[in-house]
């Protein structure tokens, strides 16, 4: 009967083109507004590392004290001293630290001009912890961190730019006049939001192009290209060594803790570490540490832009108004067919068949509205830039899942809107209809 009712539904849509057009437009515009804003919202609010987000924590230690910290919260990254000490302690299953670098890269053959590439100075655990996929080769080994090796991992995009996408493992790359041996090429990898680098406001930044060992970057005196927060009461000292061992925070640290018990253990270790610093006379306050999971960290840093949430709510409100209109239009459409309903009931259609027939007809309206909504959503993607910052706006795109969601939402919402009109249709008393005819 489904095909029969669908056929009747499509025939009914053709019968009242004006009414049908109004309904399809109401559904189409409503669903398009919702899907455009939803595409932005899902891009900025999704879990960037599903399956592992519950095991990853950023480590924060208050080195400022109650007078200078942020309303009792520790700074959003660690000092070089704390970061290297905590990673060296190896108290977590895996631990990584990094800072942002932007070395000058010299392409091979001196045929092109050098250019600045964004990257991270980090350690070998980074790749495993954040599930970085590789196209060629792999991460460097932990021994390379200890050995301060001149090795590098480059991104798929940089490999394309420098080596036309060929396997470049084993080849050399020149950065800031130092040569590095390429040990791995990542596949395209660009988690959004980039949860691990919120300190430098890179939640929606361009993809990272290269990685090199933290120890090596320190040895060659590579400066951070990210944020360097020295607070308001910090003595910078003089020279690089003073800065390096001072109280400026610029090194995010992440640990991988497989279960809540491990997290509890690590939090105790962290508290113990801060207490030691207090005993040593570095901190003049009680230990104030944090271990924030991925989602907690995204919430704390307010990664989802408020305009994204607001525009989604406005769009959903608009969609609701469209659907209320659709209820009225469907009611008018269905009740105009009271005589037909009466005949069908007289000929043996139980109420449930009337429900089926009209809900399937509503689904056909929803499908048509969904198709219109898809076209409008595709057009609307060009206008997202008017509502959002460019780096947010470019995240909105029409992919297969959004196509499916648009169609499903349009059909489901229209079927939902059709329940009342269908209920009214099913209540038609055949005797009255047939008598009045």
């Amino acid at each position, binding site marked *: 009967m489904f095909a029969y009712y669908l056929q009747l539904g499509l025939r009914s849509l053709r019968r009242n083109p004006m009414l049908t057009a109004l309904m399809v437009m109401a559904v189409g515009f409503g669903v398009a507004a919702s899907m455009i804003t939803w595409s932005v919202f899902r891009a900025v609010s999704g879990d960037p590392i599903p399956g592992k987000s519950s095991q990853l924590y950023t480590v924060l230690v208050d080195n400022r004290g109650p007078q200078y910290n942020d309303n009792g919260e520790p700074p959003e990254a660690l000092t070089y001293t704390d970061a290297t000490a905590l990673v060296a302690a190896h108290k977590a299953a895996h631990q990584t630290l990094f800072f942002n670098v932007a070395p000058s890269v010299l392409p091979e053959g001196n045929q092109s001009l050098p250019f600045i590439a964004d990257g991270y100075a980090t350690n070998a655990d980074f790749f495993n912890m954040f599930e970085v996929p590789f196209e060629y080769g792999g991460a460097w080994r932990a021994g390379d961190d200890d050995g301060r090796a001149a090795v590098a991992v480059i991104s798929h995009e940089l490999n394309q730019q420098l080596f036309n996408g060929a396997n470049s493992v084993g080849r050399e790359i020149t950065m800031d006049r130092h040569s590095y041996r390429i040990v791995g090429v990542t596949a395209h990898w660009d988690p959004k939001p980039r949860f691990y680098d919120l300190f430098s406001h890179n939640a929606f930044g361009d993809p990272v192009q290269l990685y090199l060992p933290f120890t090596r970057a320190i040895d060659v005196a590579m400066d951070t290209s990210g944020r360097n927060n020295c607070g308001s009461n910090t003595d910078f000292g003089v020279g690089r060594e003073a800065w390096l061992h001072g109280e400026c925070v610029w090194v995010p640290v992440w640990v991988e803790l497989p279960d809540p018990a491990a997290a509890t253990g690590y939090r105790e270790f962290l508290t113990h570490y801060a207490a030691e610093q207090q005993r040593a006379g570095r901190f003049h306050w009680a230990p104030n540490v944090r271990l924030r999971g991925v989602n907690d960290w995204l919430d704390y840093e307010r990664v989802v832009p408020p305009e994204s949430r607001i525009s989604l709510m406005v769009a959903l409100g608009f969609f609701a108004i469209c659907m209320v209109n659709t209820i009225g239009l469907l009611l008018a459409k269905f009740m105009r067919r009271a005589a037909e309903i009466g005949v069908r*009931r007289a000929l043996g259609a*139980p109420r449930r068949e009337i429900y089926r027939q009209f809900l399937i007809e509503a689904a056909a309206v929803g499908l048509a509205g969904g198709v219109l909504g898809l076209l409008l959503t595709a057009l609307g993607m060009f206008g997202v830039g008017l509502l959002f910052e460019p780096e947010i706006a470019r995240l909105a795109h029409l992919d297969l899942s959004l196509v499916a969601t648009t169609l499903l939402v349009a059909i489901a919402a229209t079927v939902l809107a059709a329940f009342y009109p269908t209920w009214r249709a099913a209540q038609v008393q055949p005797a009255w209809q047939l008598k009045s005819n």
Partner: protein
Amino acid sequence: MLKMTHLSKVYRTEVVETYALRDFNIDVKEGEFVAVTGPSGSGKTTFLTIAGLLETFTGGEYHLDGIEVSNLNDNARSKIRNEKIGFIFQAFNLIPDLNVFDNIEVPLRYRGMKAAERKQRIMESLERVGLASRAKHYPAELSGGQQQRVAIARALAGSPRLLLADEPTGNLDTQMARGVLELLEEIHRDGATIVMVTHDPELAARAQRNVHIIDGQVVELSEDPRFHSVHAVADGAHG
């Protein structure tokens, strides 16, 4: 086939109760052709809609083909309508968006019949009413008489035990009416039970038996419509 005993139908509003049928008794045997007559507002059509399970009744009993129908739910009533009853209405009640074939197919669809069997039954019904060549026509493309023939074909396609006709010739001119009536007589001769509501005495005279209704009660039964003696059959009912 159709037996109503002390049946009543009351329409209630906040201020008034109106009896459409009151202490209504009728017994239609299998294979009978019964004409139900009466003035406008006497309850003829209410009787027919209750008989066709299109409406519920307030009191009394109604047995259709041996089944007491008063406590049946919507599904069961719909199933009986679909399988045992054929309707012919004064206004034909064809669905304007469906062609002749599709109109006749409607009750067969609800019966869950397979496509091949549906097609065979539809074509047989159309042959019987002489409209096989009009299967693809829409109701608006047919005359009133042809539309009523299609309605009869739709009623016949499901091979119902009982055919209920409400003023089947009311909207037709004399010639078309004669054709439709001859068709009903032919269907009756083939063994169908027919209950026909009409206010046309000439039409009623063609039936096997007449039942006259006044003020919601049966007041006259006659085996031969040429006799016009009035004798009440319902307790205390007088016209």
